[in-house]
């Protein structure tokens, strides 16, 4: 940084705004601490057993969170499986394939998907998608329905409904970050491929390879979103605390059980169990988010206009 005139005013300005910057860090830490403290009754009562048992019986005061963690991971991974190819396809199309003047409207349309509130996705999923998926399940041949993956009575509300809704919700999110990553690929990469006689797809492959870390980051960020999504999932997954292999079985997620039972939790143990689920959800999303940010950061680090270049003529001269 260049030496500018410093004064007492400058120092208090720095301290004043810095206090707010510090506040954000404190806020994240406080969330973790509060969750940990509030889940003490459950942590003390069940310990690690909490994550290995499948019993969820508020009346008897017996809690195990296995079905929720299973449902959360299963639905999010399935959503990721659907959303990832679509997101990357969109990112490639918008950043490389389509005409430049198509870009803004397409970006706008995908961003419109991101702007729809989760409760609206939930309402649509519950009243439109769920009946449609039920029809789909009924239309499947008996041979297929005998498979464990597709078995179960056709109730409509199911893990699949949750995964489809989640996929629709994370596509705009993942694709817009993947697009930014692809746009950050130096044009020379593609131009060099073209110069060597590559087809458009081969050049895109080179760009995708170059951007792979960032794209993995974008996908993981979408995963983090899916893990924590509450309302839309609550409305379509069926809220049944039973881990099942079938995608047509009604299941439950961590966020959904908190949303459904939190206000009804009568005793400290039930409340503690729900908060503990929240604590683990917080930790999982934290890990996923931090990992994806780090991946994205390694990707965009080179591109960011370095802060030094903005205000240090000395460094510029040296360079």
């Amino acid at each position, binding site marked *: 940084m260049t030496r500018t005139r410093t004064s007492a005013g400058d120092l208090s300005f720095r301290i004043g*705004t810095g206090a707010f910057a510090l506040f*954000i860090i404190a806020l*994240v830490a406080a969330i973790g601490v509060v969750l940990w403290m509030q889940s003490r009754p459950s942590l003390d009562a069940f310990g690690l057993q909490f994550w290995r048992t499948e019993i969820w019986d508020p009346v008897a005061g017996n809690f195990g969170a296995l079905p929720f963690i299973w449902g959360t991971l299963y639905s999010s991974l399935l959503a990721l499986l659907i959303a990832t190819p679509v997101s990357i*396809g969109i990112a490639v199309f918008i950043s490389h394939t389509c005409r430049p003047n198509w870009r803004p409207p397409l970006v706008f349309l995908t961003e419109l998907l991101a702007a729809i509130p989760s409760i609206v996705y939930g309402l649509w999923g519950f009243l439109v998608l769920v009946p449609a998926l039920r029809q789909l399940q009924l239309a499947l041949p008996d041979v297929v329905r005998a498979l464990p993956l597709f078995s179960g009575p056709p109730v409509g509300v199911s893990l699949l409904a949750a995964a489809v809704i989640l996929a629709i919700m994370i596509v705009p999110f993942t694709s817009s970050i993947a697009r930014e990553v692809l746009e950050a690929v130096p044009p020379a990469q593609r131009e060099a491929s073209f110069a060597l006689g590559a087809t458009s797809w081969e050049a895109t492959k080179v760009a995708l390879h170059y951007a792979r870390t960032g794209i993995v980051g974008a996908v993981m960020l979408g995963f983090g979103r899916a893990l*924590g999504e509450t309302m839309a999932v609550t409305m379509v997954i069926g809220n049944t605390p039973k881990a099942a292999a079938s995608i047509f079985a009604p299941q439950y997620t961590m966020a959904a059980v908190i949303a459904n039972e939190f206000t009804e939790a009568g005793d400290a143990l039930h409340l503690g169990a729900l908060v503990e689920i929240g604590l683990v959800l917080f930790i999982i999303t934290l890990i996923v988010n931090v990992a994806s940010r780090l991946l994205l950061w390694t990707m965009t680090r080179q591109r960011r206009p370095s802060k030094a270049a903005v205000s240090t003529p000395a460094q510029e001269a040296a360079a």
Partner: protein
Amino acid sequence: MTRRDRRRRIQSTIMTGLSAGTVLLALVPLALIFFFVFSQGLRSLDFDFFTQIPKPVGETGGGMANAIVGSLLLCGLGALFAVPIGVASGIYISEYGDSWLSSASRFAADTLNGVPSIVIGVVVYATVVLPMGHFSGLAGGIALGIMMIPLIARTTEELLRLVPATLREGALALGATRSRAVLTVVVPAALPGIITGVLLALARIAGETAPLLFTAFNNAFWSEKLTQPVASLTVQVYTYAKSPYEDWHRQAWAGSLVLVLLVMICSIVARLATRRLQRMHGR
């Protein structure tokens, strides 16, 4: 052309077609959702919806007037908490970008942005609702505010970076101290952008339900005080959607339509303004 070349060309065409196909695939749910929200919503939307409060179970009619006001109230309250914190920390992050606190704070903001909204609801419940002893609009506003902080901090930071360095250098050359240059030159130049950033953040939290479920809770009547439970459009839509009544489903669609319009108008205005601002600064 050799056969291999032809194969490569065909492959390229197919892959290009597939990537265009994914765009269409993503637009299908968008079109479907809009179709249902508009067709069902418009059919159910009437004057009563904006002027009446919910009717008791069994009676048809009624509206969501209290929930609309409640949503605006909660969002306003959230903004009241989040704007000072978000803008001030955004200024620090962009202004002292080379300090560890700046990087850590930016990282914390990104992390906070990724925290599931339901978790924020749980935390606010434990820290505000439990000590107060009851659900309140205040708690709902705080929950929404926490969600807004990272959004505002990051847009403020990014927009301050967009301000041409020459402006700041000009102020410094005229002998202004750093704080003076920031407060009287850099921030005002970015102000329209910061305001749109706040609008964008509002659009995002206006659609939030999960953090309100056990903070602001719900209220079938007009709320008179912020220490009482406050109704919101989103929670009201959720309550109605879960119910077995046809008339309530109808109202849930109407509520969804209002929500979608509200959120869309906010984000369209904000985006148009951002584009304009970016053009203004030659980006």
